[in-house]
């Protein structure tokens, strides 16, 4: 839902002081926006739209990875008051294509998170020994799920997922959805980009459509 019309107080900071969750208002950047939406703790919003409509660009705007303008507020605190790395730890984007910087899978996880990672890997139907393997040789679907695990063990307040199950078979996709529901029950807010209306209906309470860089609520 769009908040911009229902709120009239002039200063964004005082307006959102008591609001919980993520509030995005008038966010715009290159080829995107202005876009407004809200994401309550434990809530899930699906974002749909044709390829090239700006879904990925919007998510990059929210995590402050591309320069733009507008207000983004988390639990009543404006994005500018967070240091950029701290903001991205709280509002975490898992892109459609994952990046890897070390040669082994385990090196991408903090040591204290390995046990939790291992549990999540099993829940997502990944091979038991996957954490000891090398990145080279992993399939696209394995990388995609590992990137999700990597984000989940960081325990962000808000998760932005760009097509999290696009490369997976039906069973694996359902396993991933199960994990996402668990996380959601724990209070994490979630925004999921998907091309699958059935998946959107399964996971999300609200569905937004994005066309030509602007948002319509379906």
């Amino acid at each position, binding site marked *: 839902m769009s908040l911009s019309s229902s709120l009239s107080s002039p200063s964004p900071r005082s307006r959102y002081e008591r609001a919980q969750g993520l509030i995005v208002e008038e966010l715009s950047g290159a080829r995107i926006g202005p876009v407004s939406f809200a994401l309550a703790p434990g809530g899930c919003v699906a974002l749909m739209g044709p390829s090239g409509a700006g879904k990925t660009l919007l998510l990059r705007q929210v995590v402050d990875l591309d320069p733009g303008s507008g207000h983004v507020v988390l639990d009543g605190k404006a994005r500018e008051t967070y240091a950029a*790395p701290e903001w991205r730890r709280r509002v975490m984007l898992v892109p459609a294509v994952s990046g890897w910087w070390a040669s082994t899978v385990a090196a991408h996880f903090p040591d204290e998170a390995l046990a939790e990672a291992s549990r999540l890997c099993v829940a997502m139907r990944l091979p038991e020994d996957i954490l000891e393997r090398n990145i080279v040789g992993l399939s696209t679907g394995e990388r995609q799920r590992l990137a999700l695990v990597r*984000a989940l063990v960081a325990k962000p307040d808000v998760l932005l997922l760009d097509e999290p199950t696009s490369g997976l078979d039906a069973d694996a996709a359902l396993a991933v959805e199960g994990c996402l529901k668990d996380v959601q029950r724990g209070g994490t807010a979630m925004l999921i980009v998907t091309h699958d209306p059935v998946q959107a209906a399964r996971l999300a309470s609200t569905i937004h459509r994005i066309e030509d860089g602007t948002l319509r609520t379906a």
Partner: protein
Amino acid sequence: MNALPLHAGDIAIAAVVVVLDAMLSIMMRLQMHRALAIASLRMVVQLVALGFILRTVFAVDAAWLTATLVLAMTLAAAREAAARPRQRLHRGHFVASLTSVAAPSLLTCLFALVCLLPAGAGWPPQFVIPVVGILLGNVLNAVSIGMTGVLESVTQDAPAIEARLLLGHTFRTATGELQRRAVRRAMVPLVNQMSAAGIITMPGIMTGQVLAGMDPLQAATYQIVLMLLLAGGSGLAAILSVRLVLGRLTDERQRLRLDRLSDG
């Protein structure tokens, strides 16, 4: 020092070998004879011109003239270093190159003055200009490899860097591997140069001084001091250039700003 005088006739004898090369190039259809001829002529003209310029500068022996020449050499070196990478920074490309070339060169040049000249000798152009020249040549190398290392790899490394940024790592951590790789690459030539010195190559300054009649041990000492300064200066230049370029590729929100890159 009694240098052996050379004349135009000696140059002609040395040129015979190059002419032989050119003839072989024609016979073997290497198509190198034109480039070879042009490069040889350029070299002769440039060095003769340099000889005349230096003769004038040494004769005048004025601080402003020496400083002007040093400035011109520094700008030329910065321009060369900036021209190497196939990817460029939209803004601040030349400034990054100039800073990384000038600061280490001038710093090491001061060290050279202290090490190699007796106290109170001032800034004789016969000393300052060749030393600045050799320092700039080496530092230029380190800067161009350092800048190239970042600018030509960062696009390819972007997914890995952004993956780390998205997990809340700082830009510094996220680009740490790229930074270390670029600095290491830029420092390899100077390590090679020092390891090979005296076994595989006889370094230029020592060669020149021995040919000009100096005692080999004294020439070696001179070379050692210069080589240490070159290594120190190049190392500083490698680190400085890599960090300056990386600094230009981020902003106050620790983003990776690939939009600040442009082709050649």
